[in-house]
């Protein structure tokens, strides 16, 4: 049985950062992930926003972590060589109820220590963002809001962790956890693993994973949101635009680092995980027309996100991150929803510190947090929409991509207008040759 000091369960963006953070200490670490790649669950369908921190109650863990993480985000992305755009955001409102919400968020933002936050008129908002509808009467401007590609960030953290000696076990489903002398035996679909400490980042199943070994007072209930993606090369808004309606949250438009505009809906009930809803998508399109009337709606893709909402035993919704430590050396991150992406590194560090303290281990002087993005284009263009070459695809395989989907998540193939219909076959052939050793 393979033995490690610490095991991370679940390879979403949280698990990837937990693994990387463990590498900051002198210990051996492994990440187990049920799917064929990391970042294939909640991380894969995310609004890509790096929040400023005005949405969270002053003094809450979320508020403290979000503000701190936001300030450090540029540095984090430079270290991991992931594109980050601090594009700023405008939360728009048209009526009295929205005005009250914006004013409260402004006050909370100030209490949370945010700089540059401003309540502005509709006209001023339209000066900054000329596409905004005439109906917008006011906006909350937050210059520190930004956007990052969630899976690129998670994959970068994972690559960096592996570079620092951590191990990755994909296609490995956790079956049970047994408490044993000095630690835990994780029974998995690819064999047993012994570890002294556990970080549970199992996303939608985090409550169930904790219950394999301990009681868990927090339960996850899921809801969903629909997303549409626009083609690149259209005139996009420059800022992230949040729509606060008289009856609650409306849509959000995010100009992504790749050049596409991503629009999401307010949460809805979830009959099937990650399945889109026709009414939800139609509603996004209508609301988008109302918010940004001149925007060309050139949709190339739709998808649905799932959010893990934490609830207490009496059924009440918990409005904060839940970090459970049912035993020393066992940490569960449960119900980490917005701003989970923003706080992924903070949460990973927090959990890793608990494990390191429990293991009584020192900091690792050899930890190197730097990682370089794939940058080796050659002259054989495979993905025409995105202009991605064979050499970049091969490098993504060298770094661990084993499926067409995994290549896509690393270099962006198949994410353009044709959605892979012109390049997928060639990418599959390159993967095949890699497997046969004939590349």
């Amino acid at each position, binding site marked *: 049985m393979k033995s490690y000091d610490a095991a991370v369960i679940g390879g979403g963006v949280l698990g990837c950062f937990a693994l990387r953070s463990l590498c900051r200490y002198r210990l051996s670490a492994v990440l187990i992930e049920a799917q064929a790649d990391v970042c294939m669950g909640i991380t894969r369908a995310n609004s890509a926003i790096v929040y400023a921190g005005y949405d969270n109650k002053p003094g809450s863990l979320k508020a403290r972590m979000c503000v701190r993480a936001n300030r450090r985000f540029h540095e984090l992305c430079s270290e991991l060589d992931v594109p980050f755009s601090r594009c700023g955001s405008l939360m728009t409102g048209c009526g009295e109820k929205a005005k009250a919400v914006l004013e409260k968020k402004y006050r909370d933002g100030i209490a949370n220590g945010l700089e540059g936050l401003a309540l502005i008129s509709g006209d001023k908002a339209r000066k900054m963002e000329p596409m905004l509808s005439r109906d917008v009467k006011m906006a909350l401007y937050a210059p520190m809001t930004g956007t990052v590609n969630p899976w690129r960030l998670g994959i970068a953290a994972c690559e960096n962790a592996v570079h620092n000696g951590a191990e990755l076990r994909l296609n490995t489903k956790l079956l049970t956890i047994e408490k044993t002398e000095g630690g835990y035996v994780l029974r998995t679909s690819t064999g047993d693993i012994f570890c002294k400490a556990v970080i549970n980042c199992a996303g939608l199943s985090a409550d169930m994973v904790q219950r394999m070994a301990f009681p868990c007072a927090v339960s996850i209930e899921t809801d969903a949101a629909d997303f*549409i*993606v626009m083609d690149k*090369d259209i005139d996009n808004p420059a800022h992230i635009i949040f729509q606060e309606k008289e009856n609650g949250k409306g849509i959000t438009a995010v100009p992504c680092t790749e050049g596409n505009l991503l629009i999401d809906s307010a949460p809805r009930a979830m009959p*099937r*995980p*990650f*399945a*889109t*809803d*026709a009414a939800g*998508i139609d509603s996004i399109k209508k609301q988008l027309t109302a918010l940004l009337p001149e925007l060309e709606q050139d*949709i*190339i*893709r*739709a*998808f649905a996100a799932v959010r893990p909402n934490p609830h207490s035993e009496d059924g009440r919704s918990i409005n904060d991150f839940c970090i459970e430590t049912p035993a020393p050396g066992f940490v569960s991150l449960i119900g980490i929803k917005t701003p989970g992406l923003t706080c992924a590194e903070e949460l990973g560090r927090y959990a890793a510190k608990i494990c390191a303290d429990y293991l009584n281990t020192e900091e690792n002087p050899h930890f190197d947090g730097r990682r370089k993005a794939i940058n080796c284009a050659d*002259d*054989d*263009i495979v993905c*025409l*929409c995105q*202009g991605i*070459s*064979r050499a970049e695809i091969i490098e993504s395989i060298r770094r661990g991509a084993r499926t067409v989907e995994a290549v896509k998540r690393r270099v962006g193939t198949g994410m353009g*207008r*044709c*959605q*892979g*219909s*012109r390049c*997928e*076959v060639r990418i599959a052939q390159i993967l095949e040759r890699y497997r046969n050793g004939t590349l």
Partner: protein
Amino acid sequence: MEHYDILIVGGGAAGISAAKAAKGKKVLLAEREEKLGGILLQCAHRGFGGDLSGMEYAATLADDLDNVEISLNTTVLSVSENKTALLSQKDCGRREISFSRLILATGAMEIAAGALHIAGDRPKGVYTAGMMQKLVNCNGFVPDGPVVILGSGDIGLIMAETVAKMDIPVTLVEKAAALGGMARNRRRLDGLDVGIRLGSTVSEIFGEKELEAVLLSNGEKLLCKTLLVAVGLECDRKLIKKLENPEWLRLCGNCERVHPMIESVINDGTQAGEWVCGI
């Protein structure tokens, strides 16, 4: 920087015809694949230039291009207002060229399933019909049945015939009240076992990892492992999107408008070639 009288982007039927017609000029014909012929190369069905297959017809078409410089495996990355283009050629690197006239013959692109944003899951097994045509005819791929084809235009009809002749169950779903496409392509289905659902569309997709079924707008659920989307083509003009209709540019073939017949594409390409020669 090397100068050409004419740069032709795209070595399908339109680009080849334009190159042939541009007699006496210094022509560069850039083609991204390793062979000239474009979409003809994935057409195994007959009816081109009499009774040839698309593949056979492409070979006859590409004959007699002696005075044309052909650059295969070459993607034209960009074209600028000052009449230069950046080319990327496999194993040869990138080079910039200048030109006096540009003929765009980049063809059309299938409307991808993503653009339809059909509700439901996003499993494997959903393809565009043209992608499947290439997989079957050029790579020897056999689709998992049953197959559902959405859209009964020419490509949908041809793929229905192709799949049915492989003895794989296939259903053609068409939104209109009657089958689309040309009469001669509709006749391809005569005597074949092809299910047809008119006045309906695919409104939801089921299957967490692999495709399991589609729900039609008439309420019927069809079990299937492959969905082919054949809802239409759009002109591929990405390369010239930023240009403001300069007088040195001409579009021909399917990037100008989608032509139902190959003869019309060839005629269009020839006219484009003659146009640049006449200047």
